[in-house]
Each structure stands twice: as structure tokens, then as C-alpha cells.
């Protein structure tokens, strides 16, 4: 089961014509797909588009009614290849992933489908993970659209515009036989809002019909001579068709004033941020009404040259608001104006930063600079309104700690890196090649383990150069998500084939945890719609790996011993440690309500948690440096003689036991204790406890009386 149940969200997908949909952006897109008569949907989960996948995977009955096939693709490449269904048949299809990482993976199939051209509308929904909160390299999806000739939509970030653009996207795709990419920035995916729904549409042509009556057209296959024909077709047929559709249906918008010798051209997705900046500069009101002419590009590729020329012809200067780099739109703009011999100055990266997210503050500063140079006196204010004086800012910088992300409380991946830290103390540091997933948090404090991360499932490939005799082996990390995404073939297959002698640790926690806890082939849970319970161990043995050791991650001692053996054994060949334990976030989601209910129902239930004995804790925090569990924190020492804070376990503790294991494995202090709280004890439990208490109490009272002889009284 995914991390969350989307039962309420699924209901929203049923809304009919005229009803108002309230919800987040990515869910609105999901609804718009059904309204557009989509036949199939695929994709690979990842923020910010995970919810699209999660909701659809919980919406099986609705999809069945409509005859829509939804597939959790094995990778973005697999998802992109799915669009092949729209090449020969009038089938609308949509695929989705996190970009640019997913687009990188998908680009082989994307280029193919773009070359073949499509008959049915093909929509690629990319969640652009750029700017604040992003966890990937900062790049643009834009050049993928340019290089393969895929049209790129970047709608204004409100639900009405976004959902309209889904519908228009399919039409544009069909009108120009070209796949269309819908780019949604991270906040647009999660913006809450509303739009007026339409009825869902059952596709007129079904997948079954296509399977039963296959159509073959040699001209659509990417192989000579068709591949050369495709290129010509792109230029001569598909491009003009797209331009004509975009113009006719006014996908780009002319907003704001119609006169004036300065104007602004903006990517649709940045429109709201621009308007807020303009409002703060006194150039617009809250409804976006302004005298300044604005050309809003809801389609950022291709550029509609007529529209550009028309907009710029009567202007001395235009401000180009284009996020990220290189500035493809600005360059295209300059080319168009040059070719038309128009003298309008294009001001873009000259006043706006080349790198980084365009926040309201950034755009406000850009507006100030642009207007100061090209229409003085128009924009209010002269410089940025940083409300804090430098001294206050400095004091805050000194006193507010950074808060890097980390493993959740009780996370089963933590002890793997604790074990690695301990083994490095013993054998020295190792080159560690990381992968993508929660386990990548190992590079952050307190573990500080990891050299590189090359992409999803590429953990072992990232260390493949180090396949040479040496005094030390390398360690690579891979999650189960990355393993099934491609690591099985690229990493494990490659290591077997190339006689690799190094070590791979596969984090087998039962889910694609970092993307929201989706099921995988190797998930232990039963899933009614998918096949699970396919062990990774069988897969790697099948590929020819003989040294495979499954280890329960919470057994820290065994993990250390297994790592030591893998790193020092004389056995040649690839060595794989399967670090197994269920993702704690998912486990708690499942077990907590059950436990609560059991306690309420009066069933005998043991709740476990850990604690630190402040009497023996001396405040060295070695345990924290080896764990980093959020529930392991610090508190004032109750000891009037000591100065350093003691370690404390807070109430979030889920009793995973790692801190106790660490105390043993690293030979720390005797301060950790495990408390088992027995709810609803039986009569036997009570009797036994009473006997124990009586005997222990007897000795304790005896000792108390002895100590009382040395009592200092109640003076402290």
C-alpha cells in the first residue's frame, strides 16, 4: 500500500459537469485526463507528481468503468515508451514523472516517439523539481522539448488554466502529430484551488480494439528511410500545424495593457509570481490588472513568431521573465526580432539572475532594474525590501541552526550507515558510491558517508571504474526502488558480467519509500492490483551473484560482521548485502491504529520504547553521532555537577531498538534502557509483577534505609 490512502481524493475524480472541484494541482490534472478521454496513463512516481500516480492506483474501479489502463511503469523510460500506443492508433495517452531526472531517463523513448509522430494525443506531464526544496540537479526540461521537437506547455498556475491546458494539450498533439509536454513547477503541483469540472469521457476507440485490429505503418518506424522523412515532416508539417493550432486557440495570452513602449514576456508558470511582484511595485492590482502589456507564454516551445513580432513591434524594450538557464526563450526572442529587423531591446538575464528560482523577491528586484533603465519613475521603490538590518541578520545567522533532512524516527536504513561508520573506524574509510532514495541522507550529518550519486539505480555503476585489484574494496548503495528501476541490469548484471569484486548494499525496505511508499515487485505486502513478493535475493542469484547475505538491518552486530566479511573475504566476485527491514513510516501507518484499537479493546498489548538513564549519561552524545534518530535528542542535565546536556529519548520513539544495539556494538555507556509497557495485563501478569515488586521492593527499602544513614536531609 502507498504511504497514504487516497480514498477521498478518488471521489473527486467522479465529479460531473458543472460541479466544482476543490483540491491540489496535480489531482486536478488527474481529473482533467479523465475528462479528456485518456485511454492509458503510465509514469514513475517522484515528488511532485507522486500524487497523480497514487490517486490513480487507488482509483481502479473508476478507471475500469472508463476503460482506462493505468500502469506503474518500471521507469520513466518504460513510461515514455508506453506512448508508442498513440503512434498507430487514435488513443490518447499520458505519462508522468519528476523532471529533469525522469526526462533524462526517458529521453531515448521520448526521442523515438517524437520522431515517429503520434496519431492519438500524447501528453507528458513533468513535475519540474527546480528551486526551493528540490533534491536534484538544477536543470531545465526545456531543451528536451527543443531537441526532440516536443511542444512544451507551461500554463499559469491556477487550476482552471492547468486543466484547460491538459485538454488543449491533447488537441494540439493530435493537430500536429507531436507529443506535448506539460511542465508543472513544484508549487503548482501542490497549489490548492478549484475549477469547474466536466464529465469524464470514455475513450471512443479502445485499447482492445487496437489489439484486435492492429494497424501497421512502416512510415512511423524509426529506421531508414523513415527517420529522415520524420525530420523533414517535423519541420514542414508538424511545426506549422502546431503554430496554427496555438494561434487559433489563443493558448498564449495577451494580458495587461495594450499600449505603452515597454512590455513583459513571461513563462505562464511564473505569471502569478510576476503579478505579485508587480503589485508590490505598484504596477498592478490584486486581480492582475495592469497598464503594462504582458505576453504570457502558456506555450514556451515553439515560439509563435507572429505573436512575438506583433507584441514587440511598438516597444522600445521588453522584459523576458524566464527561469533557469540557458535562456533558450530569450535567445529565440532575439533571433526572431533580429530576423524581423525590429530594434526592441530584450532584457532578461541582464536584470534577472541566471541561476536559481524566480521568487517574488527576485522578480521584484528585476522589475525595479528593468523599469529604472527603460521606463523611469514607473515602478515604486528603488531597491529590495529586505526588512532586516544587517546586524540582526548576522545575529540570526549565528544563532539559527541549519536543519538538513534526515532519516525518520526508527528508520531501518539508519543502522546500515551506523554499521558502515563503525566498520570504517575499524578498517579505515572506503569509497562509497550512493544512489537515489532516502538512503542518500547518509551523506549528511551525522553519518557523512558517500562520495557520489549518479542517478536512480546507478549506485553500483557509479563505482564500476574501481574494478581493479586494490587493498580495499568499494561499497555501493542501492535502494529497492533503484534496483527495480534499472539497478538490477545496469548495476548487478554489469558487475557479474565484468567480474566485479566489490560490495553492494541493497536497502530492501519493501517500498519505493522516498517517493511516497509505493509498492514494488519485492514489496512484502499483498496488493490486489499488482504482483508483489518477488524477492530481490532470487533476482540477484538468478543473475549469477553467489555471495548474497540477507541481514535484518536492526541487527547491528550482524550487519557489522557481514560488512566486515564482505570487505575482507578472499572470495572473488560481486558481493551483495541485502539490508532488510520494513520502512518505519509505512509500518507505523499500518500498525499504530491496530495497536491503538487493540489497547482500547482491552487486549494484552506491549508497547516498547527506549529511554536514557540521566544518572549514568555523561553527555558525550556518541550515541547521537552514530544514530541521528530524531527522537534521540538532548536535554539539560539533572546533575548539578555536570555541565553538558544529557541525551534524552523523546515521545516520538517507536522502540526500534537501534540505540540499544548501538550502545552494544560501539561499546558505549550503560545508559540506554528499553521499557516495555504492558497494557491490559492478564491476572497472571499482575501476580507475577506483584511478586517481583514485593521482593525487589524489599531489597530496595533495605538499601534505602542503609543510605538514609548518610542522608544530608532535605536541604538541597
Amino acid at each position: 500500500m502507498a504511504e497514504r490512502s487516497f480514498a477521498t481524493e478518488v471521489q473527486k475524480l467522479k465529479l460531473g459537469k458543472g460541479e466544482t472541484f476543490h483540491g491540489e494541482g496535480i489531482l486536478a490534472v488527474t481529473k482533467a485526463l479523465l475528462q479528456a478521454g485518456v485511454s492509458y496513463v503510465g509514469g514513475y512516481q517522484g515528488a511532485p507528481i507522486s500524487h497523480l500516480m497514487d490517486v490513480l492506483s487507488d482509483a481502479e474501479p473508476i478507471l475500469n468503468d472508463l476503460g482506462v489502463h493505468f500502469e506503474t511503469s518500471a521507469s520513466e523510460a518504460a513510461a515514455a515508451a508506453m506512448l508508442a500506443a498513440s503512434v498507430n492508433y487514435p488513443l490518447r495517452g499520458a505519462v508522468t514523472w519528476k523532471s529533469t531526472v525522469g526526462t533524462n531517463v526517458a529521453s531515448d523513448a521520448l526521442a523515438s516517439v517524437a520522431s515517429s509522430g503520434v496519431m492519438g494525443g500524447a501528453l507528458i506531464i513533468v513535475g519540474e523539481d527546480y528551486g526551493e526544496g528540490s533534491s536534484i540537479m538544477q536543470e531545465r526540461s526545456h531543451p528536451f522539448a527543443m531537441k526532440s521537437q516536443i511542444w512544451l506547455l507551461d500554463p499559469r498556475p491556477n487550476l482552471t488554466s492547468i486543466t484547460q491546458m491538459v485538454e488543449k494539450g491533447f488537441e494540439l498533439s493530435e493537430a500536429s502529430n507531436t507529443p506535448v509536454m506539460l511542465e508543472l513547477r513544484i508549487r503548482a503541483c501542490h497549489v490548492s484551488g478549484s475549477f469547474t469540472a466536466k464529465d469524464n469521457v470514455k475513450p471512443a476507440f479502445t485499447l482492445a480494439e487496437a489489439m484486435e485490429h492492429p494497424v501497421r505503418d512502416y512510415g512511423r518506424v524509426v529506421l531508414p528511410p523513415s527517420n529522415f522523412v520524420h525530420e523533414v515532416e517535423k519541420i514542414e508539417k508538424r511545426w506549422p500545424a502546431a503554430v496554427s493550432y496555438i494561434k487559433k486557440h489563443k493558448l498564449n495570452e495577451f494580458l495587461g495593457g495594450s499600449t505603452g513602449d515597454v512590455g513583459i514576456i513571461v513563462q505562464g508558470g511564473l505569471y502569478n509570481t510576476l503579478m505579485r511582484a508587480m503589485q508590490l511595485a505598484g504596477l498592478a492590482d490584486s486581480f492582475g490588472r495592469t497598464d503594462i502589456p504582458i505576453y504570457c507564454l502558456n506555450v514556451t516551445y515553439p515560439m509563435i513568431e507572429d505573436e512575438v513580432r506583433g507584441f514587440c513591434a511598438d516597444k522600445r524594450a521588453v522584459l523576458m521573465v524566464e527561469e533557469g538557464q540557458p535562456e533558450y526563450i530569450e535567445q529565440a526572442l532575439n533571433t526572431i526580432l533580429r530576423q524581423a529587423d525590429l530594434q526592441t531591446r530584450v532584457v532578461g538575464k541582464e536584470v534577472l539572475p541566471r541561476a536559481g528560482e524566480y521568487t517574488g523577491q527576485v522578480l521584484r528586484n528585476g522589475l525595479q532594474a528593468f523599469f529604472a533603465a527603460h521606463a523611469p519613475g514607473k515602478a515604486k521603490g528603488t531597491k529590495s525590501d529586505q526588512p532586516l538590518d544587517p546586524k540582526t541578520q548576522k545575529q540570526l545567522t549565528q544563532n539559527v541552526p541549519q536543519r538538513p533532512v534526515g532519516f525518520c524516527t526508527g528508520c531501518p536504513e539508519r543502522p546500515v550507515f551506523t554499521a558502515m561508520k563503525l566498520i570504517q573506524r575499524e578498517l579505515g574509510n572506503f569509497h562509497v558510491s550512493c544512489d537515489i532514495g532516502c538512503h542518500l541522507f547518509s551523506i549528511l550529518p551525522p553519518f557523512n558517508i558517500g562520495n557520489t550519486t549518479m542517478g536512480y539505480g546507478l549506485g553500483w555503476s557509479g563505482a564500476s571504474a574501481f574494478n581493479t585489484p586494490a587493498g580495499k574494496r568499494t561499497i555501493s548503495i542501492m535502494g529497492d526502488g533503484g534496483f527495480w528501476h534499472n539497478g538490477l541490469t545496469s548495476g548487478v548484471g554489469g558487475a557479474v558480467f565484468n567480474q566485479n569484486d566489490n560490495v553492494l548494499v541493497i536497502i530492501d525496505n519493501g517500498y519505493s519509500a522516498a517517493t511516497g511508499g509505493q509498492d514494488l515487485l519485492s514489496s512484502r505486502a499483498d496488493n490486489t492490483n499488482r504482483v508483489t513478493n518477488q524477492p530481490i535475493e532470487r533476482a540477484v542469484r538468478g543473475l549469477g551473484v553467489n555471495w548474497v547475505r540477507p541481514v535484518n538491518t536492526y541487527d547491528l552486530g550482524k550487519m557489522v560482521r557481514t560488512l566486515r566479511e564482505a570487505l575482507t573475504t578472499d572470495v572473488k566476485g560481486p558481493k551483495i548485502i541485502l539490508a532488510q527491514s520494513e520502512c518505519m513510516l509505512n509500518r507505523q501507518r499500518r500498525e499504530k491504529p491496530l495497536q491503538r484499537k487493540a489497547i482500547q479493546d482491552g487486549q494484552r498489548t506491549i508497547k516498547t520504547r527506549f529511554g536514557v538513564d540521566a544518572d549514568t549519561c555523561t553527555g558525550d552524545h556518541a550515541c547521537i553521532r552514530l544514530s541521528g534518530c530524531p527522537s534521540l535528542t538532548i536535554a539539560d542535565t539533572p546533575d548539578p555537577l555536570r555541565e553538558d546536556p544529557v541525551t534524552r529519548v523523546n515521545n516520538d520513539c517507536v522502540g526500534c531498538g537501534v540505540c540499544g544495539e548501538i550502545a552494544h556494538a560501539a561499546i558505549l555507556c550503560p545508559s540506554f534502557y528499553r521499557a516495555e509497557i504492558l497494557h491490559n495485563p492478564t491476572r497472571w501478569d499482575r501476580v507475577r509483577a506483584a511478586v517481583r515488586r514485593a521482593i525487589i521492593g524489599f531489597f530496595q527499602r533495605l538499601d534505602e534505609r542503609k543510605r538514609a544513614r548518610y542522608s544530608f536531609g532535605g536541604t538541597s
Partner: protein
Amino acid sequence: MKTVRPITIAITAMGGQGGGVLADWIVGLGQQNGYLAQSTSVPGVAQRTGATIYYVELFPAEAADKAKHDPILAMMPVPGDVDIVIASEIMEAGRALMRGFVTDRTTLIASTHRVYAISEKEPLGDGRQDPDTVKALAAKTAGRFIAFDMDAAAQTTNSFISSVLFGTLAGSDALPFSRTAYEKTIKNGGKAVEANLRGFALGLANSAGTTPAIPASPTPPIEPPAPAVAPLMARLESDFAPATHDMLHHGLKRVVDFQDPAYGRLYLDRMAAVHELDKAYNGARRGWRLTRDVARYLALKMAYDDTVRVADLKTRASRFARFAQEVGAKDDQIITITEFMHPRVEELCDILPTPLGRFILRTPWAKKFMGLFFGKGRRIETTSLHGFLLLRLIASLKPLRRSSLRYGVEATRITDWLDSITSAVPANYALACELAGLQRLIKGYGDTYERGMKNYATITAALGTFAEAKNAHKHIKILKEAALKDEDGLALSAALEKLQNGRTT
């Protein structure tokens, strides 16, 4: 351009603190009460314990109707343009300040509790940053600053911090909605309604400044000291300056508890010498710093943590009660306590008679043989008869302690340490105090203890090169702080190198 503006609300939180729930409530509250509402968030890895922001805008529907136009709402807060900032922890309030979200038009609602960042928890000493500065800056910068410990409030009501924050927002009157409207929003949410309403009510009460005062626990009657220790107390009070009494008292209590009144007498004997010296070098004018510093660390050194001491502490009745309270066990529940201990051969030898202990440590085969029994960690259930009686048996070895290996070792170390302090006093009083405080490095057990000893030795060895310097005490302080920064000794090496370079150039 004059225009109706949206109400802008930024929630700065850590992943998993219910910031999303709070944002949803505010959106629902607005929508049900005549406002258009929009929220945005940045999902992804930031929600795994990192700092993250939820942003909400509310716009009066009436104004939109009049304008026949939808407002354009922003996707993220702009510095200087935020009306309400809600911070689920005080340092997150500081972060909101740094990002420029808080100005004189801002109502800042913050919980004053701390969730320590890993950089604060990691150091070997005290790495905590100062929330008071942040509080003061917040109070200075914000138009209104409402802050109290909402985490504690949530715990006392068995609810969630999000509901306390929501209640505080209601009480702040920063939004034009009634209390009933807020409560209706919680009820509409349908999840943990009772708990959320409790938290909400407490937040509301606190923001309005009507928290019922917590009744102070009654002070227990003062009992006189037992006859066996009364003379020690009398000596402490008559022989030492009053400003040193509290620390000496804590120290004396500790060492007597560790061993017996005779050991307390030894403590006072040692302290008397230090106090005399302190008196001779103007201790009175210096707040008796030397006496106080030595009193603190001499007690800790004399009451060192050996296996006997640990077993003694772990079998006390008070401890069982404290644990039950710590883990929130109620009276009708049975609690089982299991201790994680790992005594090694070294710890065993510590409590053996000196010749025997030394023999085992120096004889490879003997050490190896004993290692068979002390090679791995032990889980001892102190609530079981077996576990309790085992530990009590170890604790009962206390009378033999004076003849143990560790006792002798510690006695020598104490003498050396006191000598180094005593000899430093005449030339540099502050240096003597720093040398006393250097004991802070030595703590813990096993590897931790050995690392502390090593750092202590490194610094005292380095002292030889600068002991005569006028600011030698400052160097010691810098080195001590460096040693407490990281366990690999990187900061200490860097500090030492800097010190040496600074002295040669």
C-alpha cells in the same frame, strides 16, 4: 495602485510536525467564511525532518465578486509582505525572520520549545544554540509576537501542536473569524476531533493570556542531616566561604553517596587545601572561582563511574518510578525495564583488587580468557528478580572499592591534577581554573572515556609550550572547546596547529 490585498500567511515548520494539517485548516476556515483561499507547499525530501514552508493566501470573495475577476494569488511568500507567520518551533521563527517574512505588520505566532538540529546534538559538549537571542529579535521585529511552549501544551492536553497553533491563531484575532468558525473547521476535518479541540482550547486560552497558573508543588519539610554526615556539613559551613557552599554541598553529597562519610572527609580535606590557596590569591574578589571549579570536578572525579556505581544507581527505587514517568506508563500498566550494558575486561579489572586486576590486564592469556565472558553486550532486565539481584550483588562490592585497581589509578590522577592546579595558581589564577575545568573532557565509559583521556593528555602536554604565556588560560579554553567539537579530534588538531603557528610568527 490601490487594491484589496490578500491576507498572507506563512507556516514555517519541520517535516512531520503537522504544518500541512494547519495549512488545510486555514484554507478550510477561509473558504467557509467568505474567503477565496489558496495554499502551496514544497513537498519532497524537505518533509523528511527538514525545514519547510507552507504558504496560504486568503482573499475576500466579496471583493472578487465586485471586481468580477479572480484574484491572482502568489505561490510563495515575498519578504516584507507576510501578515501572519506561524512557526512550530522557535528557531523556525528565526528562520522566518532571516527570510524577511517578519516585519512590523506581521503577527508572529511561535512555539518556544526546541527541536534540536543535528549540529546542536552532535558535539561532545554543549552545542545548543541560543533561542533567547532569536526570541528577543523576534519580539523586536514582529508587529506582534505571541509565543509559548506549545509542544508542552500539546502534551498536557494529549493533542497535537498543530491544534495548539490553530487555537493561538484564533486567540490572536489576526484573522477575521470567530472561535466557532475555527472549531467548526476542526470538526469538519473529522480526524482526532476531540484531541484537536482540546489543543485548540489551550492555544486559545494561552494567546489571550488566561492560562491557569500551574500550582506549585508543596515544598517538603526540611529534614536535618543524619548523624553520620552532620559533622561534615558542619565543617563545610564553618570552614568554607558561603559562596562555595552550594557546589561543595553537591560535591560532598555525591562522594558520600558514592562511598561513605570517610570518603566525604577526604573530599573536604582536599578541598580545604584548594580553598586555602584560593583565599591566599584573592579568591574572595574572584567569586571563589577556583574553589567552585575544583569542587565540581573533584566530586565527579572521586565519584567515578565504575561498574559498582552503575549497578548501585540502576537498582534504586527512585529510578524505577522515574522511568515509569518518563515513558508515560500509567499505574495499571506493568513496565519492564531492560538495560543495555557492555562491561569489558577493563571494566571488570577496574573493580578487582589492584594486584589481580593488574595481572589480568598485563597477562595476554588471562585477558583473553576473561574476554570470553566479557566480549559482548548484555541486556539485563532490572525489573526481573534475576537481573535485579545480579546488579545488587555487584553493587554490594562497594566496601571493597578502596582496594580496587581503578581506585588507586584515580587517586594518583587526582593528585597529579590537583598538583598542576596548585602550581599554576601563583602565576596565573585563571589558568588554574581552566585546568580544573579541563576535566570536562573526561567522561563516559569505554572508548568515550579513553578519547577524553587522550584529549586531556594532548592538551596538558601542549601546555608545556605556552604555560608561561600571559594568556595561557585562554589557550586552554580554546583547546578545550575544540576538543568538545568532534570525536575525530579534527577541531582540536586545527586549534593546536593554529596555536603553534600563532606562536612562531
